[in-house]
């Protein structure tokens, strides 16, 4: 087991470095001049001569005059020592500016994932057990609709109905502006603001997972060992939860672990529409602002999450299914 993990970690480090090279070079291919973008606000106030001096000075300060390979070496060395560079837009270290959106995203996604799993697992099992019943058919239709509708449409419909027509929730934001109250009141206020985005995130994610669990459970319930279990006279609930569900878990476990890993990645559409300062919105904003130190740091973070996620998934197979020997 330990040898397997060590081998996988070495492999992850290798993949991480290869991807870091590819990403760094790709980001440098993006057209646009970050120096000119930074000087743009000051342009009208400077003479041509001053502009040129400042331009060259800033280029040199940002290390853009060095060959690409030198810049890469500097960047990767910095990254390994925890220095992700400076955000050109915020003029603060990337490691500092990334904290708030990451915290927000994790906070929101913990609830989204918890609610999602709490609904989809029982619902998927129920639909598989009551396959082709009226309720199953209703769920299938609803999940198809949920799966087909783009997220932003669900967001806008939810805002229109629940915020504009009914007035139950605010249109956007994470807190009431200038809110004054205790920590608990602030938490309640945050949850009040997050209810609508969480509803949308849950609704949008229900379809895929529910259908996946239903399919996996249906397959499992059709297996011979289920017939054997039933023939043995086991109670139906024992058959479903002890025999079918454990076997159905194997294909689902990847999906569930990916869900947990998605706690770190923001939802671009939901965050943008509801003005939540999370990772998805932050990433797109950094690309639009040509703040590539931030963009590439987020990308590298996601790569780490994906690699760790893969490892955890593989390890979990061994836990879920004793037949899988992870060190073989």
């Amino acid at each position: 087991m330990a040898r397997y993990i060590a081998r996988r970690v070495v492999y992850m480090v290798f993949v991480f470095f290869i991807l870091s090279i590819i990403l760094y070079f790709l980001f440098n291919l993006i057209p646009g001049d970050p120096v000119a973008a930074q000087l743009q606000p000051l342009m009208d106030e400077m003479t041509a001569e001053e502009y040129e001096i400042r331009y060259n000075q800033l280029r040199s300060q940002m290390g853009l005059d060095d060959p690409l390979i030198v810049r890469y070496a500097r960047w990767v060395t910095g990254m390994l020592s925890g220095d992700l560079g400076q955000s050109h837009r915020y003029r603060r270290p990337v490691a500092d500016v990334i904290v708030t959106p990451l915290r927000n995203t994790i906070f929101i996604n913990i609830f989204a994932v918890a609610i999602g799993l709490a609904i989809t697992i029982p619902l998927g099992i129920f639909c598989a057990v009551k396959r082709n019943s009226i309720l199953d058919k209703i769920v299938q239709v609803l999940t198809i609709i949920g799966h087909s509708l783009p997220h932003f449409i669900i967001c806008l419909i939810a805002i229109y109905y629940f915020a504009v027509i009914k007035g139950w929730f605010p249109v956007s934001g994470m807190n009431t502006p200038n809110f004054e109250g205790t920590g608990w009141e602030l938490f309640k206020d945050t949850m009040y603001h997050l209810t609508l985005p969480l509803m949308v995130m849950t609704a949008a994610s229900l379809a895929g997972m529910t259908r996946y669990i239903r399919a996996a459970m249906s397959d499992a319930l059709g297996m011979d060992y289920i017939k054997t279990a039933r023939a043995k006279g086991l109670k139906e609930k024992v058959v479903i939860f002890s025999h079918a569900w454990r076997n159905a878990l194997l294909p689902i476990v990847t999906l569930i672990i990916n869900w947990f890993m998605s706690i770190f990645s923001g939802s671009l559409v939901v965050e943008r529409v509801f003005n939540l300062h999370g990772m998805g919105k932050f990433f797109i904003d950094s690309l639009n602002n040509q703040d590539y130190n931030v963009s590439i740091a987020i990308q590298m973070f996601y790569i780490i999450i994906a690699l760790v996620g893969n490892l955890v998934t593989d390890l979990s197979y061994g836990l879920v299914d004793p037949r899988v020997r992870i060190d073989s």
Partner: protein
Amino acid sequence: MMKKSILLLLVFSMVLSAFLMGCSPKEEPTDTPPTDEPGDEPGDEVTGPPSEPMGQIIVGNTTEMSGDWVPYWQNIASEYDIYNFITDYPTVAMTFDGEYLINDTVVASHEVIENEDGSKTYEYTIKDGLVWDDGTPITAKDYVATVLLWSSNVVKEMGAGNTYGQRYVGYKAYGDGEAKEFEGVRLLDDMKFSVTIDAAYLPYYFELGLVSVSPTKISFWTDDTVEVLDDGNGAYFSDNFTKENFEENIDKARSAIPRPSCGPYVLKSFDESTKTAVLEVNDKYVGDHNGQKPLIKTVIYKLVNEETQMDELATGSVDLLLGMASGSEINAGLDLVESGGFNFTKYPRAGYGKLAFVGDFGPTQFVEVRQAIAHLLDRNEFARSFTEGFGSVVNGPYGEALWFYQETKAELNEKLNQYPYSLEKAIELLEEGGWVYDENGNEYESGIRYKKLDDGTLMPLVIQWSSSGNEVSELLTIQLVENPDLAAAGMKIEETVMDFPELVNYLQRNSIEDPKYGVPTYGMFNLASNFNPIYDQSNYYEPGHPWNTSYSTDEKLDELAKAIVLTDPEDREGFKQKFVDFIVRWNELLPELPLYSNIYHDFYNDKLVDYDMNALIRVSDALLYAYVTE
């Protein structure tokens, strides 16, 4: 066991859902604690401006704030608004019409001294009794500190603009760090200081705009050990003011809260999670140039997005939305106004969307081609389509809100070519311009026109257009590029869609970024221009100047552009005449083709009263005179 787990899961799911729903307050959450002030209680009708600041306004803005509260490193519009709410007491103020005057609220007396070397000194004595929000007095040192700090080499090396005193004597030596003293800035006594405009920049019509200085509390940016001194050769900071000593302090001060305020409001908080800034009234503020003090107690800046901002207004999440420009937004806003409870203020934009031509390359270097394009685009229809009726067409580089345009409007209307839609006129112009050949050098009959250049080669009338693929580009494609009359005139426009930074690289011929950008490739770009009350076009048409992105080579146009501001401030009529002369020449040469100028609409909850806005002032100015009735 498994049964229990599933049951637990279901129960957890229901409890969590119920909890989330339960978090929804039955009533609107209170934003501020209740106060005993008159007029704050529901039902208290206020029939006129309140005697004390009261209530709050939530301003929705679509530009995300980064938390940098000074405009020397960036120019994010919403942060500049915040800066203006907390920074005031300038020696020279601007009126709502964009005219400059000495600020009597701040200046006890002033003297203008014409020096022998042609420079001009403004000597100010500051009024006693002005204080920062913490009660510490504002003195001449605070005014001098502003010029010294924001012209210094220290902030320049930190990547900030250090051009505050760029028109003053001795700026270059001080700004480059070569001189300790700033010769053109003097600290004369505790309440008296002066600034001297370099003779090279005089006369200058907007001279007063050059000598407007606001105070800075230097101890906030550095520490108590940095002093503002003057030994007679110019003001300077004590020797300990170095980048090494204060880089960290300065960096922190940019986003620090609390921070000193000399404006009508104090920045109370900024929530980075929600990108919301809260401003509370500064009770030590003595007023703007009219002595006007704020009447609204709390101003909140809240981030909204374009798609749902009108819903935010409708549901009371925000009270004021600024500068709505698109037809769909405005129509939605007007529907809201019609439904009751809301109001709006409209004003013309001080700028326009345009087609910018390149004047030194390809077919667009010839004025007849530029004029022909103008005749082949129905600009009235274009403006109507793009702005959905909430815009107009301008015929020169001005904004309709500018006072000198307003005062010369009649004359300009008479003199300016409107370039009405006309295929015949376009063909006539092209023929006059020598576009009379076909690809073989024979007389033109059909297809693409060619012009014989001085070296005998033939240039096709094919214009390369760099576009960023936005809504304007899409409309231009339909109304100009795919217009059958364009082909009938013998012209072709080829569009290349690219992202905006790349477009800018081509426009600015940024060969440092990539040598390909240094090669003139595109003959036209669709962009936008905005003008501020200091209408200075001096650099934009100078051949070879990097700001001359229309690559105009016309020396007369450059001469006329420079002449406008080279006017004595007292010579109002002369200034207007020079403005007209420049506009007329510009209109003839058409380095750009203005496409539309929006009519901006600000929508607001009708609890906001006396809100008067225009494109020249900031929202901080408009809200200073407004009040809320709730």
